[in-house]
Protein backbone atom coordinates (compact mmCIF):
# COMPACT_ATOMS: atom_id res chain seq x y z
CA UNK A 1 0.00 0.00 0.00
CA UNK A 2 2.94 2.35 0.63
CA UNK A 3 3.27 3.21 -3.00
CA UNK A 4 4.06 6.86 -2.36
CA UNK A 5 7.77 6.35 -1.70
CA UNK A 6 9.68 5.85 -4.91
CA UNK A 7 12.21 3.07 -4.64
CA UNK A 8 15.29 4.84 -6.05
CA UNK A 9 15.67 7.83 -3.76
CA UNK A 10 13.34 6.36 -1.13
CA UNK A 11 15.82 5.91 1.69
CA UNK A 12 17.32 9.40 1.52
CA UNK A 13 13.93 11.00 1.25
CA UNK A 14 12.60 9.10 4.24
CA UNK A 15 15.68 10.11 6.28
CA UNK A 16 14.96 13.80 5.65
CA UNK A 17 11.29 13.26 6.43
CA UNK A 18 12.04 11.68 9.78
CA UNK A 19 14.57 14.40 10.62
CA UNK A 20 11.97 17.14 10.12
CA UNK A 21 9.45 15.04 11.97
CA UNK A 22 11.70 14.77 15.01
CA UNK A 23 11.62 18.58 15.23
CA UNK A 24 7.83 18.61 14.93
CA UNK A 25 7.54 15.94 17.61
CA UNK A 26 9.89 17.87 19.91
CA UNK A 27 7.76 21.02 19.52
CA UNK A 28 4.64 18.99 20.24
CA UNK A 29 5.82 16.73 23.06
CA UNK A 30 8.37 18.75 25.07
CA UNK A 31 5.72 20.85 26.89
CA UNK A 32 3.69 17.76 27.80
CA UNK A 33 6.72 15.74 28.94
CA UNK A 34 8.04 18.74 30.87
CA UNK A 35 4.71 19.11 32.63
CA UNK A 36 4.57 15.45 33.66
CA UNK A 37 8.25 15.46 34.66
CA UNK A 38 7.84 18.63 36.74
CA UNK A 39 4.87 17.19 38.58
CA UNK A 40 7.18 14.56 40.10
CA UNK A 41 9.97 17.01 40.89
CA UNK A 42 10.77 17.90 44.49
CA UNK A 43 10.23 21.56 45.39
CA UNK A 44 13.93 22.43 45.40
CA UNK A 45 14.53 21.14 41.89
CA UNK A 46 11.39 23.00 40.85
CA UNK A 47 12.89 26.34 41.87
CA UNK A 48 16.21 25.91 40.14
CA UNK A 49 16.96 28.69 37.63
CA UNK A 50 18.48 26.14 35.25
CA UNK A 51 16.41 23.19 34.04
CA UNK A 52 16.84 20.06 36.17
CA UNK A 53 16.51 16.76 34.35
CA UNK A 54 17.64 14.29 37.00
CA UNK A 55 16.03 14.16 40.41
CA UNK A 56 14.47 11.78 42.92
CA UNK A 57 10.81 11.57 41.85
CA UNK A 58 8.30 12.48 44.52
CA UNK A 59 4.54 12.35 44.83
CA UNK A 60 4.51 15.32 47.23
CA UNK A 61 2.60 17.61 44.86
CA UNK A 62 -0.11 15.05 44.21
CA UNK A 63 -0.39 14.32 47.93
CA UNK A 64 -0.58 18.04 48.71
CA UNK A 65 -3.36 18.49 46.14
CA UNK A 66 -5.50 15.75 47.63
CA UNK A 67 -4.85 16.47 51.30
CA UNK A 68 -4.80 20.26 51.43
CA UNK A 69 -6.30 21.22 48.10
CA UNK A 70 -9.70 19.51 48.28
CA UNK A 71 -8.96 17.99 44.91
CA UNK A 72 -11.11 14.91 45.47
CA UNK A 73 -14.23 17.08 45.55
CA UNK A 74 -13.22 19.01 42.42
CA UNK A 75 -12.53 15.76 40.64
CA UNK A 76 -15.98 14.49 41.56
CA UNK A 77 -17.62 17.75 40.37
CA UNK A 78 -15.82 17.46 37.03
CA UNK A 79 -16.82 13.83 36.60
CA UNK A 80 -20.47 14.51 37.50
CA UNK A 81 -20.91 17.66 35.39
CA UNK A 82 -19.11 16.31 32.32
CA UNK A 83 -20.41 12.75 32.68
CA UNK A 84 -24.10 13.50 33.19
CA UNK A 85 -24.22 16.18 30.49
CA UNK A 86 -22.55 13.71 28.10
CA UNK A 87 -25.06 10.94 28.89
CA UNK A 88 -28.04 13.27 28.40
CA UNK A 89 -26.60 14.76 25.21
CA UNK A 90 -25.83 11.39 23.64
CA UNK A 91 -29.22 9.87 24.56
CA UNK A 92 -31.18 12.84 23.20
CA UNK A 93 -28.74 13.16 20.29
CA UNK A 94 -29.47 9.58 19.21
CA UNK A 95 -33.23 10.16 19.24
CA UNK A 96 -33.15 13.48 17.43
CA UNK A 97 -30.31 12.50 15.11
CA UNK A 98 -32.28 9.46 13.96
CA UNK A 99 -35.48 11.48 13.66
CA UNK A 100 -33.70 14.10 11.58
CA UNK A 101 -31.94 11.55 9.37
CA UNK A 102 -35.11 9.60 8.61
CA UNK A 103 -37.63 12.40 8.19
CA UNK A 104 -38.29 14.65 5.24
CA UNK A 105 -40.02 17.92 5.80
CA UNK A 106 -39.94 21.39 4.40
CA UNK A 107 -37.37 23.64 6.02
CA UNK A 108 -35.23 20.70 7.20
CA UNK A 109 -32.12 22.57 6.04
CA UNK A 110 -33.04 25.52 8.23
CA UNK A 111 -33.58 23.30 11.26
CA UNK A 112 -30.20 21.67 10.64
CA UNK A 113 -28.57 25.08 10.33
CA UNK A 114 -30.18 26.28 13.54
CA UNK A 115 -28.87 23.20 15.38
CA UNK A 116 -25.32 23.67 14.20
CA UNK A 117 -25.27 27.42 14.74
CA UNK A 118 -26.21 26.75 18.37
CA UNK A 119 -23.04 24.71 18.72
CA UNK A 120 -20.94 27.47 17.18
CA UNK A 121 -22.16 30.44 19.19
CA UNK A 122 -19.30 32.20 20.99
CA UNK A 123 -19.06 31.13 24.63
CA UNK A 124 -18.68 34.70 25.88
CA UNK A 125 -22.05 35.55 24.31
CA UNK A 126 -23.85 32.50 25.77
CA UNK A 127 -22.48 32.93 29.27
CA UNK A 128 -24.06 36.39 29.71
CA UNK A 129 -27.78 35.60 29.39
CA UNK A 130 -27.31 32.23 31.11
CA UNK A 131 -25.69 33.96 34.07
CA UNK A 132 -28.77 36.15 34.65
CA UNK A 133 -31.21 33.31 33.94
CA UNK A 134 -29.30 30.99 36.29
CA UNK A 135 -29.53 33.63 39.01
CA UNK A 136 -33.31 33.68 38.66
CA UNK A 137 -33.67 29.91 38.84
CA UNK A 138 -30.89 29.38 41.41
CA UNK A 139 -28.66 27.29 39.18
CA UNK A 140 -25.49 29.26 39.94
CA UNK A 141 -22.87 27.29 41.88
CA UNK A 142 -24.57 23.94 41.31
CA UNK A 143 -23.74 20.78 39.39
CA UNK A 144 -27.16 20.82 37.60
CA UNK A 145 -26.33 24.36 36.44
CA UNK A 146 -23.07 23.17 34.92
CA UNK A 147 -24.85 20.21 33.30
CA UNK A 148 -27.35 22.58 31.68
CA UNK A 149 -24.53 24.90 30.60
CA UNK A 150 -22.62 22.02 28.99
CA UNK A 151 -25.77 20.83 27.23
CA UNK A 152 -25.85 24.15 25.35
CA UNK A 153 -22.92 22.92 23.28
CA UNK A 154 -23.05 19.12 23.76
CA UNK A 155 -26.68 18.64 22.72
CA UNK A 156 -26.50 20.34 19.29
CA UNK A 157 -23.17 18.62 18.69
CA UNK A 158 -24.60 15.18 19.54
CA UNK A 159 -27.71 15.69 17.38
CA UNK A 160 -25.65 16.79 14.39
CA UNK A 161 -23.06 13.98 14.59
CA UNK A 162 -25.61 11.25 15.23
CA UNK A 163 -27.61 12.59 12.28
CA UNK A 164 -24.51 12.17 10.11
CA UNK A 165 -23.93 8.60 11.31
CA UNK A 166 -27.60 7.58 10.90
CA UNK A 167 -27.75 9.16 7.44
CA UNK A 168 -25.02 6.75 6.34
CA UNK A 169 -27.16 3.73 7.21
CA UNK A 170 -29.30 2.50 4.35
CA UNK A 171 -32.96 2.59 5.50
CA UNK A 172 -33.46 -0.81 3.84
CA UNK A 173 -32.15 -2.59 6.94
CA UNK A 174 -34.82 -1.06 9.13
CA UNK A 175 -37.42 -1.64 6.43
CA UNK A 176 -36.50 -5.32 6.36
CA UNK A 177 -36.94 -5.55 10.13
CA UNK A 178 -40.35 -3.92 9.84
CA UNK A 179 -41.39 -6.37 7.15
CA UNK A 180 -40.57 -9.05 9.72
CA UNK A 181 -43.00 -7.40 12.12
CA UNK A 182 -40.80 -5.01 14.10
CA UNK A 183 -42.31 -1.69 15.13
CA UNK A 184 -40.64 1.53 14.06
CA UNK A 185 -39.16 1.96 17.50
CA UNK A 186 -37.85 -1.61 17.49
CA UNK A 187 -36.31 -0.99 14.06
CA UNK A 188 -34.54 2.03 15.52
CA UNK A 189 -33.55 0.44 18.82
CA UNK A 190 -32.67 -3.08 17.68
CA UNK A 191 -31.37 -2.46 14.16
CA UNK A 192 -30.17 1.10 13.60
CA UNK A 193 -28.76 1.89 17.03
CA UNK A 194 -26.36 -1.08 17.32
CA UNK A 195 -25.05 -0.31 13.84
CA UNK A 196 -23.93 3.19 14.82
CA UNK A 197 -22.09 2.10 17.99
CA UNK A 198 -18.81 3.68 16.78
CA UNK A 199 -20.71 6.92 16.24
CA UNK A 200 -22.23 6.79 19.71
CA UNK A 201 -18.86 6.12 21.35
CA UNK A 202 -17.16 8.90 19.36
CA UNK A 203 -19.92 11.38 20.17
CA UNK A 204 -19.81 10.47 23.85
CA UNK A 205 -16.05 10.83 24.09
CA UNK A 206 -15.99 14.16 22.28
CA UNK A 207 -18.83 15.49 24.48
CA UNK A 208 -16.89 14.31 27.50
CA UNK A 209 -13.67 16.01 26.32
CA UNK A 210 -15.47 19.30 25.52
CA UNK A 211 -17.19 19.52 28.90
CA UNK A 212 -14.31 18.12 30.99
CA UNK A 213 -12.02 20.73 29.40
CA UNK A 214 -14.43 23.63 29.88
CA UNK A 215 -13.13 26.68 31.66
CA UNK A 216 -15.29 29.66 30.67
CA UNK A 217 -18.67 28.27 31.78
CA UNK A 218 -17.40 26.88 35.07
CA UNK A 219 -15.42 30.06 35.78
CA UNK A 220 -18.65 32.05 35.49
CA UNK A 221 -21.21 29.69 37.03
CA UNK A 222 -19.36 27.43 39.46
CA UNK A 223 -18.77 28.36 43.07
CA UNK A 224 -17.28 26.62 46.10
CA UNK A 225 -19.72 23.72 45.95
CA UNK A 226 -19.37 23.03 42.21
CA UNK A 227 -15.74 23.92 41.43
CA UNK A 228 -14.28 21.79 38.64
CA UNK A 229 -10.67 20.73 38.03
CA UNK A 230 -9.80 23.37 35.38
CA UNK A 231 -10.98 26.12 37.74
CA UNK A 232 -8.99 24.63 40.59
CA UNK A 233 -5.95 24.61 38.30
CA UNK A 234 -6.41 28.26 37.31
CA UNK A 235 -6.86 29.32 40.94
CA UNK A 236 -3.75 27.53 42.16
CA UNK A 237 -1.74 30.17 40.44
CA UNK A 238 -3.40 33.15 42.01
CA UNK A 239 -4.39 32.03 45.48
CA UNK A 240 -1.62 29.99 47.04
CA UNK A 241 1.22 31.86 45.38
CA UNK A 242 3.15 30.15 42.65
CA UNK A 243 3.24 26.42 43.12
CA UNK A 244 4.41 25.07 39.80
CA UNK A 245 4.73 21.61 41.31
CA UNK A 246 1.06 21.43 42.21
CA UNK A 247 0.08 23.16 39.00
CA UNK A 248 1.87 20.63 36.81
CA UNK A 249 0.41 17.82 38.94
CA UNK A 250 -3.17 19.02 38.50
CA UNK A 251 -2.45 19.66 34.81
CA UNK A 252 -1.36 16.05 34.44
CA UNK A 253 -4.50 14.84 36.22
CA UNK A 254 -6.76 16.93 33.95
CA UNK A 255 -5.01 16.09 30.72
CA UNK A 256 -4.07 12.40 30.79
CA UNK A 257 -7.56 10.81 30.93
CA UNK A 258 -8.71 12.88 27.94
CA UNK A 259 -5.65 11.92 25.91
CA UNK A 260 -6.36 8.24 26.61
CA UNK A 261 -10.05 8.32 25.68
CA UNK A 262 -9.42 10.67 22.76
CA UNK A 263 -6.85 8.39 21.16
CA UNK A 264 -9.12 5.41 21.79
CA UNK A 265 -11.52 6.70 19.12
CA UNK A 266 -8.85 8.09 16.79
CA UNK A 267 -10.32 6.31 13.76
CA UNK A 268 -13.57 8.22 14.11
CA UNK A 269 -12.17 11.52 15.39
CA UNK A 270 -12.12 13.18 11.97
CA UNK A 271 -15.78 12.40 11.48
CA UNK A 272 -16.70 13.82 14.86
CA UNK A 273 -14.48 16.88 14.83
CA UNK A 274 -15.54 17.96 11.34
CA UNK A 275 -19.17 17.57 12.39
CA UNK A 276 -19.59 14.67 10.00
CA UNK A 277 -18.27 16.54 6.96
CA UNK A 278 -15.12 14.46 6.45
CA UNK A 279 -15.00 10.68 6.70
CA UNK A 280 -11.72 9.37 8.08
CA UNK A 281 -9.45 6.40 7.46
Amino acid sequence: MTTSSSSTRGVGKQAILYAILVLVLLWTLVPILWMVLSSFKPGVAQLSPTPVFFFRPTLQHYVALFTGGNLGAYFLHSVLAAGISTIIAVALGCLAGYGLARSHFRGKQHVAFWIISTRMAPIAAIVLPLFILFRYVHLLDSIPGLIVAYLTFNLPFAIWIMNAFFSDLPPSLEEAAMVDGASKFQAFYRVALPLVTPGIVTTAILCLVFSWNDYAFAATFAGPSSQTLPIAAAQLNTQTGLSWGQLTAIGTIVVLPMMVVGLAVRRYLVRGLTLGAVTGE
Partner: protein
Amino acid sequence: MAATQTEGRGSSSNKGATGGGFSFEMKMLLPVLLVLAVLSLFPFFYIIWMSLNTVSLLNGISFDFAGLSNWTRMFTDVVVGAAWVRSVIYFVATVGLEMILGIAIALLVHELVWGKNLVLSLLLLPMFMAPVIVGLLGRFLTDSSYGLYAYVLRELGIFDRDILGTGSSAMPAVILMDVWEWTPLIVLIVLAGLASVNQYVIEAAKVDGANYLERLRHIVAPSIAGVVIVALLVRSMDAIRYFDIITVTTNGGPGNTTKIIPIRLYETAFRFFDLGYAAAIGLGMLVFSILVATVFVRILESRGLAK
Protein backbone atom coordinates in the same frame (compact mmCIF):
# COMPACT_ATOMS: atom_id res chain seq x y z
CA MET B 1 -49.17 -3.68 7.30
CA ALA B 2 -46.20 -2.00 8.84
CA ALA B 3 -44.31 -2.32 5.59
CA THR B 4 -46.80 -0.21 3.71
CA GLN B 5 -46.14 2.67 6.04
CA THR B 6 -42.39 2.78 5.53
CA GLU B 7 -40.92 5.33 3.21
CA GLY B 8 -39.53 4.16 -0.08
CA ARG B 9 -35.91 5.32 0.30
CA GLY B 10 -36.93 8.87 0.94
CA SER B 11 -38.58 9.27 -2.43
CA SER B 12 -42.06 9.63 -0.99
CA SER B 13 -42.71 12.26 1.61
CA ASN B 14 -43.78 11.58 5.16
CA LYS B 15 -46.94 13.57 4.94
CA GLY B 16 -49.08 10.71 3.68
CA ALA B 17 -48.21 8.46 6.59
CA THR B 18 -48.60 11.03 9.28
CA GLY B 19 -52.39 11.13 9.21
CA GLY B 20 -53.55 13.27 12.11
CA GLY B 21 -50.53 13.35 14.40
CA PHE B 22 -46.81 13.53 13.91
CA SER B 23 -44.87 10.74 12.27
CA PHE B 24 -42.66 8.46 14.36
CA GLU B 25 -39.55 10.33 13.19
CA MET B 26 -40.98 13.69 14.16
CA LYS B 27 -41.98 12.32 17.56
CA MET B 28 -38.33 11.48 18.13
CA LEU B 29 -37.06 14.79 16.81
CA LEU B 30 -39.47 17.39 18.17
CA PRO B 31 -39.15 16.88 21.95
CA VAL B 32 -35.37 17.12 21.70
CA LEU B 33 -35.62 20.22 19.51
CA LEU B 34 -37.85 21.69 22.18
CA VAL B 35 -35.12 21.10 24.78
CA LEU B 36 -32.58 22.68 22.44
CA ALA B 37 -34.90 25.64 21.88
CA VAL B 38 -35.12 26.23 25.62
CA LEU B 39 -31.33 25.98 25.86
CA SER B 40 -30.55 28.23 22.92
CA LEU B 41 -33.46 30.40 21.79
CA PHE B 42 -34.37 31.52 25.30
CA PRO B 43 -30.86 32.85 26.05
CA PHE B 44 -30.73 34.27 22.51
CA PHE B 45 -33.82 36.44 22.91
CA TYR B 46 -32.75 37.24 26.43
CA ILE B 47 -29.38 38.61 25.33
CA ILE B 48 -31.15 40.79 22.76
CA TRP B 49 -33.38 42.15 25.51
CA MET B 50 -30.33 42.68 27.74
CA SER B 51 -28.61 44.68 25.01
CA LEU B 52 -31.56 47.09 25.01
CA ASN B 53 -31.29 47.69 28.75
CA THR B 54 -28.94 48.97 31.38
CA VAL B 55 -28.59 45.82 33.48
CA SER B 56 -27.48 46.16 37.07
CA LEU B 57 -26.56 43.35 39.45
CA LEU B 58 -26.65 45.50 42.58
CA ASN B 59 -29.52 44.61 44.92
CA GLY B 60 -30.71 41.72 42.83
CA ILE B 61 -31.08 42.13 39.09
CA SER B 62 -32.55 45.30 37.66
CA PHE B 63 -33.32 46.10 34.03
CA ASP B 64 -33.62 49.70 32.96
CA PHE B 65 -34.76 50.13 29.35
CA ALA B 66 -32.13 52.06 27.45
CA GLY B 67 -33.24 51.73 23.84
CA LEU B 68 -30.37 51.50 21.40
CA SER B 69 -27.89 53.38 23.58
CA ASN B 70 -25.69 50.29 24.15
CA TRP B 71 -25.60 49.77 20.39
CA THR B 72 -24.74 53.34 19.46
CA ARG B 73 -22.09 53.31 22.18
CA MET B 74 -20.56 50.12 20.80
CA PHE B 75 -20.14 51.53 17.31
CA THR B 76 -18.32 54.59 18.63
CA ASP B 77 -16.31 52.85 21.40
CA VAL B 78 -12.61 53.13 20.54
CA VAL B 79 -11.63 50.50 23.13
CA VAL B 80 -14.04 47.94 21.70
CA GLY B 81 -12.95 48.83 18.18
CA ALA B 82 -9.33 48.22 19.14
CA ALA B 83 -10.32 44.89 20.71
CA TRP B 84 -12.02 43.88 17.43
CA VAL B 85 -8.85 44.76 15.50
CA ARG B 86 -6.76 42.67 17.92
CA SER B 87 -9.29 39.84 17.59
CA VAL B 88 -8.95 39.85 13.84
CA ILE B 89 -5.15 39.85 14.08
CA TYR B 90 -5.24 37.02 16.64
CA PHE B 91 -7.78 35.12 14.54
CA VAL B 92 -5.88 35.47 11.26
CA ALA B 93 -2.51 34.68 12.87
CA THR B 94 -3.66 31.60 14.80
CA VAL B 95 -5.88 30.08 12.12
CA GLY B 96 -3.42 31.04 9.35
CA LEU B 97 -0.41 29.48 11.08
CA GLU B 98 -2.40 26.40 12.05
CA MET B 99 -3.52 25.88 8.45
CA ILE B 100 -0.04 26.33 6.96
CA LEU B 101 1.73 24.18 9.55
CA GLY B 102 -1.12 21.65 9.67
CA ILE B 103 -1.12 21.09 5.90
CA ALA B 104 2.69 20.91 5.79
CA ILE B 105 2.88 18.39 8.65
CA ALA B 106 0.05 16.33 7.16
CA LEU B 107 1.88 16.10 3.82
CA LEU B 108 4.96 15.00 5.73
CA VAL B 109 3.20 12.35 7.81
CA HIS B 110 1.37 11.07 4.74
CA GLU B 111 4.72 10.18 3.11
CA LEU B 112 5.91 8.12 6.09
CA VAL B 113 6.53 4.47 5.42
CA TRP B 114 6.64 3.17 8.99
CA GLY B 115 5.49 4.47 12.36
CA LYS B 116 2.76 6.56 10.76
CA ASN B 117 0.11 5.60 13.31
CA LEU B 118 2.38 6.15 16.29
CA VAL B 119 3.57 9.52 14.97
CA LEU B 120 0.02 10.67 14.35
CA SER B 121 -1.12 9.60 17.82
CA LEU B 122 1.75 11.52 19.43
CA LEU B 123 1.10 14.59 17.26
CA LEU B 124 -2.57 14.67 18.26
CA LEU B 125 -1.96 14.80 22.03
CA PRO B 126 -2.14 18.61 22.54
CA MET B 127 -5.60 18.67 20.98
CA PHE B 128 -7.14 16.76 23.91
CA MET B 129 -5.78 19.15 26.51
CA ALA B 130 -7.99 21.63 28.33
CA PRO B 131 -7.10 25.04 26.83
CA VAL B 132 -6.81 26.41 30.35
CA ILE B 133 -4.07 23.86 31.11
CA VAL B 134 -2.33 24.79 27.85
CA GLY B 135 -2.36 28.42 29.01
CA LEU B 136 -1.07 27.58 32.49
CA LEU B 137 1.59 25.32 31.02
CA GLY B 138 2.55 28.17 28.70
CA ARG B 139 2.98 30.41 31.71
CA PHE B 140 5.14 27.78 33.36
CA LEU B 141 7.36 27.36 30.29
CA THR B 142 7.77 31.11 29.77
CA ASP B 143 8.19 32.06 33.44
CA SER B 144 11.24 34.33 33.56
CA SER B 145 12.72 32.64 36.66
CA TYR B 146 11.90 28.95 36.23
CA GLY B 147 10.55 28.51 32.70
CA LEU B 148 12.20 26.01 30.37
CA TYR B 149 11.48 27.97 27.19
CA ALA B 150 12.40 31.28 28.81
CA TYR B 151 15.71 29.69 29.82
CA VAL B 152 16.41 28.38 26.33
CA LEU B 153 15.57 31.71 24.69
CA ARG B 154 17.73 33.56 27.21
CA GLU B 155 20.72 31.22 26.81
CA LEU B 156 20.48 31.46 23.03
CA GLY B 157 20.44 35.23 23.36
CA ILE B 158 17.14 35.52 21.52
CA PHE B 159 14.94 37.04 24.22
CA ASP B 160 15.70 37.81 27.86
CA ARG B 161 12.72 39.74 29.13
CA ASP B 162 9.49 38.50 30.70
CA ILE B 163 7.77 36.91 27.69
CA LEU B 164 4.14 37.30 28.79
CA GLY B 165 4.79 40.60 30.58
CA THR B 166 6.28 42.40 27.61
CA GLY B 167 4.00 44.11 25.12
CA SER B 168 5.85 43.00 22.00
CA SER B 169 6.13 39.32 22.94
CA ALA B 170 2.86 38.61 24.79
CA MET B 171 0.67 38.41 21.67
CA PRO B 172 3.06 36.16 19.71
CA ALA B 173 3.33 33.93 22.79
CA VAL B 174 -0.42 33.42 23.24
CA ILE B 175 -0.79 32.92 19.49
CA LEU B 176 1.88 30.20 19.57
CA MET B 177 0.15 28.49 22.49
CA ASP B 178 -3.06 28.28 20.45
CA VAL B 179 -1.08 27.13 17.40
CA TRP B 180 0.61 24.45 19.52
CA GLU B 181 -2.72 23.10 20.71
CA TRP B 182 -4.74 23.21 17.48
CA THR B 183 -2.35 22.55 14.58
CA PRO B 184 -2.86 18.80 15.28
CA LEU B 185 -6.55 19.16 14.44
CA ILE B 186 -5.68 20.46 10.97
CA VAL B 187 -3.11 17.66 10.54
CA LEU B 188 -5.76 15.08 11.38
CA ILE B 189 -8.39 16.47 8.99
CA VAL B 190 -5.99 17.06 6.08
CA LEU B 191 -4.55 13.55 6.49
CA ALA B 192 -8.06 12.16 6.05
CA GLY B 193 -8.28 14.14 2.82
CA LEU B 194 -4.88 12.90 1.63
CA ALA B 195 -5.89 9.30 2.29
CA SER B 196 -8.72 9.68 -0.20
CA VAL B 197 -6.56 10.98 -3.05
CA ASN B 198 -6.63 8.52 -5.92
CA GLN B 199 -3.34 6.59 -5.82
CA TYR B 200 -3.64 5.41 -9.44
CA VAL B 201 -3.70 8.97 -10.69
CA ILE B 202 -0.60 9.72 -8.57
CA GLU B 203 1.20 6.67 -9.96
CA ALA B 204 0.20 7.56 -13.52
CA ALA B 205 1.58 11.08 -13.02
CA LYS B 206 4.84 9.62 -11.69
CA VAL B 207 5.13 7.45 -14.77
CA ASP B 208 4.59 10.54 -16.87
CA GLY B 209 7.51 12.16 -15.04
CA ALA B 210 5.66 14.66 -12.85
CA ASN B 211 7.75 15.63 -9.80
CA TYR B 212 6.41 15.96 -6.26
CA LEU B 213 5.53 19.64 -6.51
CA GLU B 214 3.76 19.16 -9.83
CA ARG B 215 1.75 16.25 -8.43
CA LEU B 216 0.97 18.33 -5.34
CA ARG B 217 -0.29 21.23 -7.40
CA HIS B 218 -2.24 19.42 -10.10
CA ILE B 219 -3.53 16.28 -8.37
CA VAL B 220 -3.32 16.49 -4.59
CA ALA B 221 -4.36 20.13 -4.11
CA PRO B 222 -7.60 19.90 -6.13
CA SER B 223 -8.57 16.62 -4.43
CA ILE B 224 -8.10 17.86 -0.87
CA ALA B 225 -9.43 21.40 -1.40
CA GLY B 226 -12.83 20.55 0.08
CA VAL B 227 -11.37 18.92 3.16
CA VAL B 228 -9.02 21.86 3.68
CA ILE B 229 -11.98 24.25 3.57
CA VAL B 230 -13.81 22.14 6.15
CA ALA B 231 -10.71 22.21 8.37
CA LEU B 232 -10.45 25.98 7.98
CA LEU B 233 -14.08 26.56 8.90
CA VAL B 234 -14.16 24.14 11.84
CA ARG B 235 -11.05 25.75 13.26
CA SER B 236 -12.32 29.29 12.58
CA MET B 237 -15.49 28.66 14.52
CA ASP B 238 -13.63 27.41 17.58
CA ALA B 239 -11.07 30.22 17.32
CA ILE B 240 -13.94 32.68 17.75
CA ARG B 241 -15.51 30.58 20.50
CA TYR B 242 -12.68 30.07 22.96
CA PHE B 243 -10.68 32.59 24.98
CA ASP B 244 -9.41 30.39 27.82
CA ILE B 245 -5.71 30.54 26.95
CA ILE B 246 -5.54 34.34 27.02
CA THR B 247 -7.67 34.53 30.16
CA VAL B 248 -5.23 32.49 32.24
CA THR B 249 -2.02 33.81 30.72
CA THR B 250 -2.23 37.58 30.19
CA ASN B 251 -5.95 38.27 30.70
CA GLY B 252 -5.66 40.96 28.05
CA GLY B 253 -2.42 42.53 29.23
CA PRO B 254 0.17 43.82 29.33
CA GLY B 255 -1.32 47.22 28.51
CA ASN B 256 -4.26 45.73 26.58
CA THR B 257 -1.94 44.20 23.96
CA THR B 258 -3.75 40.85 24.04
CA LYS B 259 -7.24 42.14 24.87
CA ILE B 260 -9.30 40.45 22.18
CA ILE B 261 -13.06 40.98 22.02
CA PRO B 262 -14.26 38.08 24.27
CA ILE B 263 -11.83 39.21 27.00
CA ARG B 264 -13.19 42.75 26.68
CA LEU B 265 -16.75 41.42 26.81
CA TYR B 266 -16.03 39.35 29.90
CA GLU B 267 -14.48 42.23 31.82
CA THR B 268 -17.28 44.59 30.74
CA ALA B 269 -19.80 42.14 32.18
CA PHE B 270 -18.11 40.71 35.24
CA ARG B 271 -15.64 43.38 36.31
CA PHE B 272 -17.48 46.59 35.39
CA PHE B 273 -20.90 44.90 35.73
CA ASP B 274 -22.10 46.66 32.60
CA LEU B 275 -24.09 43.61 31.43
CA GLY B 276 -26.32 45.42 28.96
CA TYR B 277 -23.37 46.78 27.08
CA ALA B 278 -21.60 43.41 27.22
CA ALA B 279 -24.74 41.88 25.69
CA ALA B 280 -24.47 44.23 22.71
CA ILE B 281 -20.80 43.24 22.24
CA GLY B 282 -21.81 39.57 22.56
CA LEU B 283 -24.42 39.95 19.83
CA GLY B 284 -21.74 41.48 17.62
CA MET B 285 -19.67 38.33 18.13
CA LEU B 286 -22.72 36.17 17.47
CA VAL B 287 -23.35 37.89 14.13
CA PHE B 288 -19.73 37.32 13.18
CA SER B 289 -19.86 33.59 14.00
CA ILE B 290 -23.23 33.10 12.29
CA LEU B 291 -21.69 34.56 9.12
CA VAL B 292 -18.89 31.99 9.35
CA ALA B 293 -21.37 29.19 10.10
CA THR B 294 -23.46 30.19 7.07
CA VAL B 295 -20.42 29.86 4.83
CA PHE B 296 -19.68 26.47 6.43
CA VAL B 297 -23.13 25.05 5.77
CA ARG B 298 -23.30 26.53 2.25
CA ILE B 299 -20.05 24.84 1.31
CA LEU B 300 -21.12 21.54 2.84
CA GLU B 301 -24.39 21.73 0.96
CA SER B 302 -22.75 22.54 -2.35
CA ARG B 303 -20.49 19.54 -1.86
CA GLY B 304 -23.45 17.36 -1.02
CA LEU B 305 -22.14 16.61 2.48
CA ALA B 306 -25.03 17.95 4.54
CA LYS B 307 -28.04 15.78 4.00
